[in-house]
């Protein structure tokens, strides 16, 4: 199935929850915020959300900036 992650179409396995998806991408869980279909999720909600086809995921973190 295909979901849109950070503006790009990504092929995902069925039944993957958000936390598992982040870990699979070697993303440091303690440094990111996740928006799922325009709703900001708390970290404790990541495990309970199974990604569905055409979901829109934004994974954001702090970077340098003025």
């Amino acid at each position, binding site marked *: 199935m295909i979901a849109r992650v950070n503006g790009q179409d990504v092929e995902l396995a069925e039944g993957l929850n958000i936390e598992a998806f982040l870990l699979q991408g070697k993303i440091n869980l303690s440094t990111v915020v996740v928006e799922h279909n325009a709703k900001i999720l708390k970290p404790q909600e990541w495990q309970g959300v199974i990604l569905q086809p055409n979901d829109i995921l934004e994974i*954001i973190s*702090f*970077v340098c*900036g003025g």
Partner: protein
Amino acid sequence: MEDVLLIAGKQIKSRFFLGTGKFSSYALMKKAIESSSAHIVTVALRRVNQGAGNENILDFIPGDSILMPNTSGARNADEAIRLARLARAAGCGDWVKLEIINDQKFLLPDNAETIRATEVLAKEGFIVMPYCNPDLMDARRLKDAGAASVMPLGSPIGTNQGLRTKELLFILIEEIDLPIVVDAGLGRPSQAAEAMEMGCDAVLVNTAVATADDPELMARAFALAVEAGRSAWRARPAQIGKYAKASSPLTGFLR
């Protein structure tokens, strides 16, 4: 008398705010923050690249800093509001530097959209620090919308041109009962001192520090200039005159 900068009821320990963009490394950025003793430090938010290095900028910012995420990248109020909410969800407090830009050549802020976003975010409990054009009426609207300060530009971002908006900044200092923070365009410590001498409450600098040959030393230079300028403002400078006035007595020796 103690000279305290209060924003949203919080005592800010330094009138020099530092942006974290454009440093060649996080380690160097950290040294600049430390050498300047900046208390308010800005950061930005971006999409995470999968598999990219996971070095975390927050590990390089002193723990007692006030982290002020900006909404750079936002082209309208809705995008800025979304970014601010994401920043707060990341767990770094309620401060936000509201920055809404849809002009890519001069990077000038959109005051109308900024006022709109300020109203929404202030109601949600954010401490809103809006980057804006120095317009008196818009500054009043920002205050009415709940802004915690007004952050007008001295000149366009990253240009190092200094206080090109000086006469308009004077008007904001006179008329707006909120901290006035000059944000953007300050390229030299002397320009930061000039802003403070004329009565600005603080300055925010990024490019001029980060792109100096020695950012750590330049950060210190800016912090000292801000302190000097503030002291000069508090001391109330004497009038500038056209004709000479002798500093030494003119009588009592050869005449």
